[in-house]
């Protein structure tokens, strides 16, 4: 009975049910030509609307006015639709489309994913949820303009000395003056990119932990780097990020439902797009 638990089926069933209900309701209303019924419900709506605007209920006279206006609106509406005035009106068309799409949007709010649904979604969208790799590292900067042709030699010497000192090196007097900190703790790769640029970030990613390494370049110059700790990005468990997965799952289902809606609607239509004789449309690069 796996099919019964398939959310898309829920969408379709619910959708069908609502469309049927709506079309029945509206047929019921429209199907009696020559009669306009102002129902109790309509009257209540008129009163509520008035009260919200004016902060008091309408007087009897005002309610009569509202009712007359409603009847006029209804008869004008019927005539206008009969005359096809809605067809070439951008605003009406857009509103109707919005309403239709809202209906399918609403549906997805009522379908509750099971944990199994979410787990499956999580597994198939790993990139959406994976945490970023973070680095705890230290860096010493060499300014190429201060070293000229000796840059490589100086870098190698610095590295050799650092190797001997290891992690405990006192860095405060090493390298060249630099406005960025020498030590960073648990900084994500995207933050590294923001601070040092892409080049340095990919260099840092390639550095092995636990030893000084030279030759990491940035837009500023070169850096000798010591990665103290590297925490790989990981996929959190569903319980850690349940709400976020659910949000994205619903977004995805909404998209699917809208696509499905149009597929269904377009069944039975052939689409023919007339081509202009000469292609004069500017190519946008």
């Amino acid at each position, binding site marked *: 009975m796996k099919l019964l638990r398939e959310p898309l089926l829920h969408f379709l069933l619910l959708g069908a049910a609502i469309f049927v209900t709506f079309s029945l309701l509206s047929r019921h209303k429209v199907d009696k030509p020559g009669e306009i019924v102002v129902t109790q419900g309509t009257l209540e709506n008129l009163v509520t609307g008035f009260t919200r605007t004016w902060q008091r209920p309408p007087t009897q006279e005002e309610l009569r006015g509202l009712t007359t206006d409603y009847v006029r609106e209804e008869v004008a509406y019927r005539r206008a639709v009969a005359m096809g005035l809605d067809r070439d009106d951008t605003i009406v068309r857009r509103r109707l489309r919005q309403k239709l799409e809202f209906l399918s949007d609403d549906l997805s709010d009522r379908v509750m994913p099971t944990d199994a649904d979410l787990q499956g979604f999580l597994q198939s969208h790993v990139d959406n949820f994976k945490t970023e790799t973070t680095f705890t590292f230290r860096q010493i900067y060499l300014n190429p303009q201060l070293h000229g042709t000796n840059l490589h030699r100086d870098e190698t010497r610095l590295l050799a000395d650092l190797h001997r000192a290891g992690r405990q090196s006192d860095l405060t007097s090493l390298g060249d003056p630099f406005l960025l900190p*020498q030590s960073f703790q648990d900084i994500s790769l995207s933050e590294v990119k923001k601070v040092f640029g892409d080049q340095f970030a990919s260099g840092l990613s390639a550095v092995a932990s636990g030893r000084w390494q030279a030759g990491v370049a940035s837009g500023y110059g070169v850096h000798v780097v010591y990665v103290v700790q590297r925490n790989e990005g990981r996929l959190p468990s569903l319980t850690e990020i349940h709400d976020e997965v659910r949000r994205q799952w619903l977004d995805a289902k909404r998209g699917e439902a809208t696509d499905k809606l149009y597929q269904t609607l377009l069944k039975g239509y052939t689409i023919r797009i007339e081509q202009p004789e000469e292609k004069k449309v500017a190519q946008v690069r």
Partner: protein
Amino acid sequence: MPPLKTTRIALVLFLSTLGNSPVVAQEPSPPEQQLESVFPKKPPYSPYANRHFPERVYWGDTHLHTSFSMDAGAFGCRLVPRDAYLFAKGKEVTASSGQQVRLARPLDFLVVADHSDGFGFFPLIFNGDPKVMADPQGRRWNEMIMSGQGAAAAIDIITSFGKGTISKAIFPVPGTASYQGAWEEVIKAAEDANEPGRFTAFIGFEWTSNTGGNNLHRNILFRDNASKASMVEPYTTQKPSGSDNPRDLWKWMAAYEEKTGGQVLAIAHNGNLSNGRMFPIIESFTGKPIDREYAETRAQRERIYEVTQIKGDGEAHPFLSPNDEFANYERWDKGNLDLTVKKKPEMLEFEYARSALRNGLKLEQELGVNPYKFGMIGSTDAHTGLAAIDEDNFWGKVSASEPSPDRATHAFLKTENATIMGWEQTASGYAGVWSTDNTREALFDAMQRKEVYATTGPRMIVRFFGGWNFDANDANTRNPAVAGYAKGVPMGGDLSNAPASKSPTFLVAALKDPIGANLDRIQIIKGWLDAKGETHEQIYDVVWSGERKPDSKTGKVPQVGDTVDVPNATYTNTIGSSELIKVWKDPQFDPSQRAFYYVRVLEIPTPRWTAYDAKYFGIQMPPEVPMKGQERAYTSPIWYTPGK
């Protein structure tokens, strides 16, 4: 651990040669005491301990509009606050013109600051809200927009707003459901996007005082979250609930803080379009000289100023600073905001940051308080939902000026007085904030202490400290900030009580944008008030790239050169420096005179956005269009006030 010590000594020796200082004697090892002097204090085991000062600059935009601003919407913007925050975080979005767009690098923070007047008005017009459609004016605008005349509708809406002729029946005002709904949505977008430590989404809005077309706009920024911000609705300029007078805005701010226990700040912008009203000596609302109450409240409420943005740069004007060859930068000085009144030269003094800082000293002498003691930031003021102002990724002031072959050559604004062409839009700027953390509270507090600076787009790092005891060695330390905070005050700070026969010293440093152009020079701009009550300014070239020699007569450092290849929209970093550092002492200090000092950092010349457009679209720009420029940063000043 003898081996370690030996290594350290070796390192010290080795690095002394690196640092261009005299070579120290070779082995054998110096005695223990000497070692102690080289390593005066063993640093804590954890290199992260004992750091209480801001180590990082956070980048952001305090001034971005979405379709919730009625002019933005009318000009074609369809993006909502939620989209704006996603874009700032580095996500790719579809711009209103249908093109895909993404930032080269994410920002660290963003304020969506939509106009409080008519908040959410445009979505009502666009969606054909029944009330709007029932009104002849509303219906007309809706039909104009629907039939593709959005730009004409926008101008009509803005003009009608300026004249106060928008129909009361359709205009959302505080207290109505549509207004509250829009505010709730703005707050929700910020709450959803805010990720303390990673990305800060401030709640904010823009108060748009524009009487007579004169720009007195202020952006309001909340330190607080939804629980406090939703206790109020944005302050508007429309009477009776609102006002166009900044004094009333300040009262509203005080009332908010009183009511909620929260905090807000206000950031003014575009003095260049205020026609002499942004930094007044005579208040335009009363015709009287500003008083102590005005000065006190403004100094308290408006601690930073947005000095550069798409509608021009507002640091200095060549008319006011004829000796400043860099003052003529991205100038917008044809008139007020809607070009209904032409600019007159006598207005300029009350529009530009540098002259306001100078007048502030004068007013402080008279009133006892300096109303114009502000720090400086840049922001975009884009009306596209896109904080995209890199020269090679510039998405324009409004959605109608998103990239297209003719956006530069179309008039941006045209009246009988003047025309502003599309190419005059300035791809600028961002705010750099020295903050201890990327949170609403930490960034807000950094803004309040003015530890901020403006750039015209590039993310260069700039440090600026003032004190009495900086010496040349402080510029040679590996982390200049340690000396900076230990011996002085950072940008935005104050110096007073000059020690006998001492002049103030400044430690200044700049590091280029990691993916940007090299630096040309660092300048310190000093302004002061003399004994006769007159103000002056002087620009000092403090440190520059290469071997250039200052001119013997003017003292000015010659131009850095130019590597820009305009047809290919490229440049090379073969000139300029990646980093500049220097300790500078004021050579003409008089301890009895009030003064301010701020830093201007200049990049080497790079292609302007118009060059990137010309290359991409394969078009020829008219000869008057500038194709390159020197981008820059302006720091908040450090003030010197004589002791009492």
